[in-house]
């Protein structure tokens, strides 16, 4: 079934088209939710809420961009709304403890994506959200400030700290190597 047929079917509230759309995009969108959520169950709740919005708002899709991108924006905004509603931004975790608790092993390449996402999820909710929006979803700091009701500079500073934390985690878990700092780099920095 082509994307146009799926959209046309969904516009007519056709169950088969809706199921097809869900089957096609839910694995990717659940991974998006999972990066924002605290648990898999929370991620599934976000996904569920997001897809209900997708089906109810599909008539607003105007074929001006990628359909997947349109769905993704709805899902991301749903995730943010859920986090705001549950006031999760104030929670924090002990990064050191979380990293040490993991078994240190060499990570096979095939598992790398999962491991990177798991590392992102170790960050405090506020840092994680900004990092997700900026580094992965491609939002600007101004947009992030608007979405999260924070200042643009706050978004920048949170992102810088989030990235530094994540870097530590990735190095400790041997997912990336520690960068070799050279004299000119130090001077430049």
């Amino acid at each position, binding site marked *: 079934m082509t994307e146009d047929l799926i959209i046309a079917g969904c516009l007519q509230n056709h169950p088969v088209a809706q199921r097809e759309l869900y089957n096609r995009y839910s694995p990717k969108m*659940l991974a998006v939710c999972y990066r924002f959520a605290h648990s898999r169950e929370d991620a599934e709740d976000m996904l569920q809420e997001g897809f209900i919005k997708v089906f109810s708002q599909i008539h607003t899709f105007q074929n001006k961009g990628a359909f997947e991108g349109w769905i993704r924006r709805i899902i991301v905004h749903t995730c943010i709304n859920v986090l705001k509603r549950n006031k999760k931004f104030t929670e924090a975790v002990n990064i050191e403890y979380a990293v040490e608790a993991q078994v240190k092993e060499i990570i096979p390449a095939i598992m790398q994506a999962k491991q990177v996402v798991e590392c992102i999820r170790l960050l405090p909710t506020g840092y994680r959200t900004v990092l997700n929006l900026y580094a992965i979803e491609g939002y600007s700091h101004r947009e992030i400030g608007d979405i999260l009701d924070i200042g643009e500079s706050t978004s920048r500073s949170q992102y810088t700290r989030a990235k530094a934390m994540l870097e530590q985690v990735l190095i400790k878990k041997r997912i990336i190597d520690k960068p070799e700092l050279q004299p000119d780099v130090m001077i430049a920095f």
Partner: protein
Amino acid sequence: MKRKLYQDELEDFLSASAEDLRMYPSSRVWHNIDNKIHGEKKWPALTFAAFLIGAISLAGLILMKPDKDLFKPRHITNTVAANTNAQPQASKAFVVSENLIVANSGKNQAADGDELMQVLMNEQDLATANTVVENALRQEEPTITVNTAQYPQAVLQSSVLLNEEDWTGANRVQSITLREESNNYTLNELPAGINAETAARLSAALPQPQAKSTVDAEALANTVSLKKASKWSLQYYATPSLSYRLLSEVKDVNNTSSIAAPNSLNAMVNHKPKLGLELGSAVMYNVTDYFSVKAGLQLNYRQYAIDAYATPANQPAMIRIDRGNNRFDTIYANNSISNVGPQQNEMQVTNHYFQLAMPVGFELSMATFNTSKFVLAATFQPTYNIGQQSWLISSDYQSYVKQPDLMRKWNFNTGVEAFLRFSNKSGNLNWQVGPQIRYQLLPGAQKKYPVREHLIDYGLKIGVSKTL
């Protein structure tokens, strides 16, 4: 500059890694979405099964012509002691309630399953007991007293349920309840509430006092005792069923960092039930009228399908094995199929199990109707796997592999069932139909395999049993 480059690389790396990840939501998510946008749907299979069972039960009850007092317990209140030497007592009367039929004394047997009747009659009165009163009184009418000085005195010691073949003149002999009363009515002095029509019917049906006995009382006394049915019976049954499975996993084994899968196991596997069959035979022994034990042998064929994806080349799959004491081994297999993949590569594989089981259990009769019973039963079934084909999921949930050596040969199942049992006229052949659930107590694979799979079958058991 180098630092800047590193920063860009990190972001690209994060973005690429995150984009690669796919997670498969549990079926609950779509179910909730579908309910939200289309409303709650009822499970058609459940509705159909309930309808089928209901229809069979109703048809059975109608065909067996149940009593009007279907759900009322039958009993004799204030049973009159048998005394063949007792003189007729003019003052003694019995209130006859509900439907009364006086049995033809010329016949000698009455039996219906395990309900037996003993009719002991006064020698003098036996001569007049050759008449039938059929549905003389309606339930809503007041009780009527028959003077036993004029009419035969039947002394009954048990619930009465007579076989129509054995009693001429009686289309159907139904329950009789007798109770001694101080009041003494004759048909000429009917209590208020008995209408003329009922009185006329009763009068015509009652025996004539001048009738003489043609039955040898001694012969009757010898033959009136009833033959008891055997306590042993042989049962054959077949149960078409649908097999489902319940999955869980031992987290300590599969949740190491090298294979950690963010997806839950149940979200990653998708299986569909397929039709299986159970064929068996059992010997039953009736311990009491309501309780029996049984043991037998049965063959079970159970199967279910798993959604999978064909791969152009065998992909390596890894299974973590728990050796105990925190020691883990890893099995690598190449003969695998994928659990994830593009839609065009979708396929199904089937897990089959062919088993021999020895069910041992009991049956408990919960309610007795006219010629049918409602029975609950449970069995414990040591089971041997004669043959099987089982695809096991890899530790990262990405593949399915065949590892027959990981499967158990012996297992234990348990079964619970509820059914209606219908008896034929002579009571020695019984048919039964009802739902059955069979659950596999131990996981299909050995303990060292971290994924626990318990099969559960939902079936409709149809059986026949014959008294030996």
